[in-house]
């Protein structure tokens, strides 16, 4: 029988604790792995999903804006080519009423139109307009830079943004050149397009997700659309008509000259959005990124899309916390679940461990008692054997002395006998009678000693035999005691192992 006994017994955890730990590991490890996976996979996936949603959202809004603007550009460019309008601009006043009728037709094509106006190609004065002749915006009816672009046929463009102070609504001008049959520019048609529907697109962003909002930034870096949290729309958003980066002095002069973004009393001020500004400097058609927008105290996921119809950028913003909220919530739930299951598993582990270790512990206790009894017995046997052996050894010593003595007596007697015989040989010198009596007495005594010695020798031989037998028994007893002691030691080792197993 062999035992794998560690050279240095180490203190180990109890079976109960180990069972609990295993159970906890069994239930908590998957949860922990799920949480780690959540961080590694789910969170990026959610962000990607949100980005995709925002992309769709932004694309659909931009598509709606582009559709509206392009359709209106199309309307203006086609109606601008109507016969009466062309001939009116060529100077035939007969066509004035029909041209006005056609402007009226165009005006009614979209509820966001607030005016349709005709200019000659110098743009100096409006020639005809419905429903009323427009005023100047700052110093101009048509700013010089736009007028310069409108000197070639089939040119359509959209202006920068203005603010109607009365209606608190932004508007842009859609311009198109009107050409003659000879394809020469004969005038300019302009539709004043209120941004009501476009702002509605921006305002609707709040419906996309909690905390979500949107803005439109024009090519000058000015926010021309911004989600209005005032549902009555009686006030304008704080960030509206504020630039995302400082404006150049040249552009500020242009704003003043053209009365862009409102009158001089509400001139554009700067509201820095450096993260956004740096993104807009890149020429990407669309992009997704994170930054902390102006007026917001938290990180936002943003998706930008460039409009095709105008040099505008539509930006959808959604709090990162709402995007990863599901992942955070799941992590929280998993952690709570993990803690609850850990406690449950620990309790179950303890109960199961105790149930399993109780009979083992009982056996251990019983074995311990047996072992101790065995050890006690072995000790006693060993002590007795040692005592017995000591006695035997003493007897052996005495016996040995007696044997020596007997041998000496025998030797003396033998010597006496020899002397008596020698005396007898000197017989002439003693009285015969005395000599004989003494001599016989010596001889007799010597014979007796010799006989006693012989008898003693025989007795010592018997004793020696008995001692040898006793010695043999003692040896056997000692050997048995040693075996019992070894057995007890081995039992103790088994107990130690059991104890180590159950941890008690």
């Amino acid at each position, binding site marked *: 029988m062999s035992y794998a006994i560690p050279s240095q017994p180490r203190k180990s955890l109890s079976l109960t604790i180990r069972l609990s730990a295993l159970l906890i590991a069994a239930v908590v490890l998957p949860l922990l*792995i799920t949480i780690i996976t959540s961080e590694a996979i789910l969170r990026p996936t959610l962000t990607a999903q949100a980005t995709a949603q925002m992309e769709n959202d932004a694309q659909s809004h931009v598509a709606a804006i582009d559709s509206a603007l392009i359709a209106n550009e199309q309307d203006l460019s086609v109606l601008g080519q109507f016969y009466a309008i062309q001939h009116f601009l060529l100077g035939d006043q007969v066509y004035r009423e029909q041209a006005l009728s056609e402007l009226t037709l165009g005006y009614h094509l979209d509820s966001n139109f607030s005016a349709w106006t005709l200019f000659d190609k110098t743009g100096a004065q409006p020639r005809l307009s419905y429903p009323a002749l427009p005023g100047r915006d700052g110093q101009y009816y048509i700013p010089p830079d736009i007028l310069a672009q409108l000197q070639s046929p089939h040119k359509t463009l959209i202006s920068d943004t203005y603010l109607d102070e009365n209606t608190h609504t932004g508007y842009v001008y859609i311009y198109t050149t009107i050409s003659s049959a000879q394809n020469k520019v004969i005038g300019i048609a302009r539709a004043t397009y209120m941004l009501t529907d476009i702002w509605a697109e921006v305002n609707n962003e709040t419906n996309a997700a909690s905390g979500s909002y949107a803005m439109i930034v024009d090519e000058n870096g000015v926010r021309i659309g911004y989600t209005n949290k005032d549902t009555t729309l009686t006030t304008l958003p704080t960030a509206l008509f504020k630039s995302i980066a400082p404006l150049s002095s040249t552009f500020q002069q242009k704003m003043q000259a053209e009365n862009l973004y409102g009158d001089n009393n509400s001139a554009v001020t700067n509201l820095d959005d450096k993260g956004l500004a740096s993104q807009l400097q890149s020429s990407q058609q669309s992009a997704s990124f994170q930054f902390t927008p102006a007026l917001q105290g938290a990180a936002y996921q943003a998706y930008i899309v460039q409009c095709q119809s105008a040099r505008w950028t539509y930006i959808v913003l959604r709090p990162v916390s709402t995007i990863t909220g599901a992942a955070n919530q799941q992590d929280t739930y998993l952690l709570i679940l993990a803690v609850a299951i850990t406690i449950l598993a620990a309790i179950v582990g303890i109960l199961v461990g105790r149930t399993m270790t109780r009979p083992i512990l009982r056996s251990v206790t019983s074995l311990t008692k047996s072992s101790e009894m065995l050890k006690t017995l072995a000790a006693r046997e060993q002590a007795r054997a040692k005592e017995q052996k000591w006695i035997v050894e003493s007897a052996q010593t005495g016996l040995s002395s007696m044997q020596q003595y007997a041998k000496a007596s025998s030797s003396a007697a033998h010597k006496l006998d020899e002397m008596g015989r020698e005396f007898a040989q000197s017989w002439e010198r003693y009285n015969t009678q005395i000599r004989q009596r003494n001599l016989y007495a010596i001889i007799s005594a010597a014979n007796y000693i010799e006989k006693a010695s012989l008898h003693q020798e025989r007795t010592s031989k018997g004793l020696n035999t008995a001692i040898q037998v006793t010695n043999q028994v003692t040896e056997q007893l000692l050997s048995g005691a040693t075996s019992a002691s070894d057995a007890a030691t081995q039992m103790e080792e088994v107990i130690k192992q059991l104890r180590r197993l159950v941890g008690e």
Partner: protein
Amino acid sequence: MKTVREWKQIHALILGMLILASLLLVSCESGPTSSSQGSHATNGGKGCTKVGILLPETTAARWETDDHSLLVKAVTEAIPGVHIDYNNAQASSETQLSQAETDLANGDCILVVAPHDSVAAAAIVAKAKALNVPVIAYDRLIQSKSLNYYVSFNNVTVGDLQAQYIAAHYKDYEKNGAVPNMVMISGSKTDENALGFSEGAHSVLDPLLAQGTLKDVYENFTANWDANVAQAEMEAALTDLQDNIQIAYVANDDMAQTVIVALNAVGLSGKVLVTGQDATASGIRSILLGKQSMTVYKPIAHEAASVGTLVKAIYQGADTSTLTNGLTTTTTDGGNIPSILDTPLAVDRNNITSTVIADGFLTKSEICNNVPSGTDGVC
């Protein structure tokens, strides 16, 4: 009795199984993280054997009764063994975009698109361009400078033909020397064709209107070319003008039929000049019955055949400039799209036989139902 080493091995085994089970659990929970979407790049349509045909709606009868079969025939003849994905957007721009995306994902390498919305369909062109798939705008222009080809009729000419008929006959409808009142019910303002029709019509009618020999009392564009809306517009105009209407410029035959219903309701059917377009069976029948004055016959077979010719040239990688002859159409974003523009024909009761019937576009059985025998020598 197990040794410490054996216990350790068991522990490791259990732990390994737990981790494996966890990973399986997580992988099951995670599910698919991405889906593969078909993407491909084509050689600009050269060698293409998968063609997508996307038509806009079923409101106007022509798309399903004529264009569908004619386009399929033309493309089938152009490319041997071609696979055609046909879709009708049912008057939804979103649906049409989705259909186009599906076609592109399925590997279609030439798209023939009659857009529901000229502006919204620019998204289709953008997606196709990203895959180097050429797009042919069929019958209606797509407002994108990335559009590859445009096959249609000269829309301005269509309106011109309608207006010329009015100019030639409006005096016949004068009542007691009064200037005839005209209602103009145009097509959808989101359809660039409708604007072209209107532009053509005004090019002829504006001088009359400016001179006061004809009076435009009502003019509107009709969303989605909806015939029911057209009827409502006519009813409203009749009410406003106390039925004093002599001319009805109606942009197509489908709307003309419901305008006739409105006129019939006030006893004016056959007494008002009504125009139309597309030479539909119902439109020709109305002409034969005297309820509609004219229509514009756009030989759709020619238009579809032009598409077939263009598709064949693209498939073969041949030069297409000989087909377009340098003709271009301008888009609002500054594009000049190579175009094939076929010529439309005006049809009234005098030339039905020599046009739509002679071309096989319509049969007598289609147009003579409920028409008295011998009418105009057609039925």
